[in-house]
């Protein structure tokens, strides 16, 4: 095979090779991300620890990861589903804005309470505060790994 033709084919194979290098690097990045996500229990902005739950749903002592917005209520479409007869379908909503957590009562029948005090409209919630809906008490905690905040 003459050298020129050899060069041509080397360049052609090189082109295909670079295409695959590109894909390979992406694949590596994806796998790396997946592993990181699995190792880190997710970038949490906060957690809710279930202090009291007479009906057992959610179970006492469990820790629920929170996103920037978490709805609380009896309806199954809520982020936090609470089985309690004194809890409305859509009871309250926890939101993270700026650097703080806020809870807003969504017009529930029996109201929402922070550390025992009723919530009117929107109120700030700090880490360690206990939010009560119906007979269920939930405590807001810091995220598991602070460094996970991106």
């Amino acid at each position, binding site marked *: 095979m003459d050298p020129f033709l050899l060069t041509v084919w080397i*360049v052609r194979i090189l082109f295909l090779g670079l295409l695959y*290098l590109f894909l390979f690097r992406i694949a590596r990045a994806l796998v790396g991300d997946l592993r*990181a996500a699995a190792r880190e229990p997710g970038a949490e902005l906060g957690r809710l620890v279930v202090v009291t739950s007479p009906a057992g749903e959610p179970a006492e002592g469990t820790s629920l990861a929170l996103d920037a917005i978490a709805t609380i209520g009896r309806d199954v*479409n809520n982020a936090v589903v609470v089985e309690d007869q*004194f809890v*409305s379908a859509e009871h309250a909503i926890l939101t993270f804005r700026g650097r703080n957590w806020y809870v807003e009562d969504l*017009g529930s029948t029996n109201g929402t309470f922070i550390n025992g005090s009723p919530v009117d409209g929107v109120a700030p919630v700090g880490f360690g505060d206990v939010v009560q809906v119906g007979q269920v008490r939930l405590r807001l905690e810091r995220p598991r790994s602070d460094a996970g905040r991106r």
Partner: protein
Amino acid sequence: MTAATASLPAIFGGIRPRARWRETKLLAVVAATILVGSVSLELTRQVAVPGEATGLHPANPLHLAIYLGLLLVAHVVLILSGRRMDQILFPTVAMLGGISLLLMERLPRNLVVQSVGPWKLGLGDVQLAWLILSFVLATGLAVTVRSDRWLRLYKYTWAAAGVALLLATFVLGDEVNGQRLSLTLGPISGQPSELLKVILVVFLAGYLSENRPLLVEESTRVGPISLPPLPFLAPMVAMWAIALGIVVVQRDLGAALLFFTVFLALLYAATGRPGYVVMGVLLFLVGAFVMYQLVPTVRVRVDIWLDPFKDRTGTGYQVIQSLYAFARGGLLGTGLGAGLPTVNGVLPIPAVHTDFPLAALGEELGLVGIMAILGLFLVVIERGLRIAASAADDFRAILAAGLALVIGTQAFIIAAGNLKLIPLTGITLPFISYGGSSLLVNGIIVGLLLALSDRGVEPPPPPRRPGRLARLTGLGRPAAAHPGPAAARSGPSVPVPPRTPSGAAELAEPGGGDGG
């Protein structure tokens, strides 16, 4: 998104650049690949004319320089924007665009001739121009779109605009080969069906995210079958009817198939009910069967899909030539520029730059190359779907998923048509086919996806529950709330209809950088 994406110090007040190293490295590989490809193309040209080996240099250095410059500028703009957007999507799309440039460079220049002033632009020039516009649009959207309010709230306006556009094409469109696909407004002509895809996704995202709980939980029972709830059955059938209409009036089988598939996929994604998909597939089969009987174009397409060799020189010619091209490619291909043997100076595959780019690439890059290109499209889909899965709320999730699906499904449909796996349709291969409308709209899609992937974009309003009537009209005026199944068990106190949330739903955008 590792710790490496730290922000650089603020410049000029508001601008806070953020490094995007992963994107930089990937773009470097893209640049190298396209450079090598260009050299390969040039070398092939030299082989054909022996004795004129002028060494290793790219085929069209000007185009190459402009394109790589474009990538650099876009990359820098994305860095300067300071937003934490996906870093893999843009390089992948850049690679696809580069392959497109190489292909258009390789094809005869005079397949397309556009005169602009004193210049005569050929195929490669025009494609490069559209690629530039497309990436400018994508980058522009990626850095400026901060709020999805304009998409979210006006979904019925969007739908109406889409229908109007469709009707305009039905009535006023230019008829080419029996298909009414393009609309000409003065000097500009484009294919509105491309834009329609995006409008459809925006509408569906709004519609499905709002009505999701109802669609998930309720059904209309017809005997043993459970269908979507009656008020929602109508829009679904309307969707189907529109798709059929497109087929009948515009003869655009590809668009109809695309619309319907994206619609079904999003419906499934939003509700998780396989029953809807089954019903949709049944509707499709019925529609397809009826169309086959009634519409001659459909019949011809299906017949040549089943046996193209029956009419070798007539209707089956295109598909047969496409298959021949793939066969000639083999495992490694013939090399860029070395395929597509001409007979009497004419390319063997008609419309290769619009409908059959994959066949040309299959011949020149072989099975190895085709798998790489399929891989690139899968990456685009994966990024889009990942953006959807980690979106802040349902609307964004469905929007992102829909946008990713538009690109992915379209690529699948045309690739499968080239390979005779499904009947041939006349839609374009995203980013690779020649076509301004297609490139622009795909640029919009990529821009929107990048914007949606930014974790710092305005958080969505909390979910609201407007009344049933309001839901149907989508005006969102709070009315008597839908009680929901859980409310059946009333609490001990006097049941009082819960107050609907006041309009205090809009959240202020978290100020500056660090928020989410």
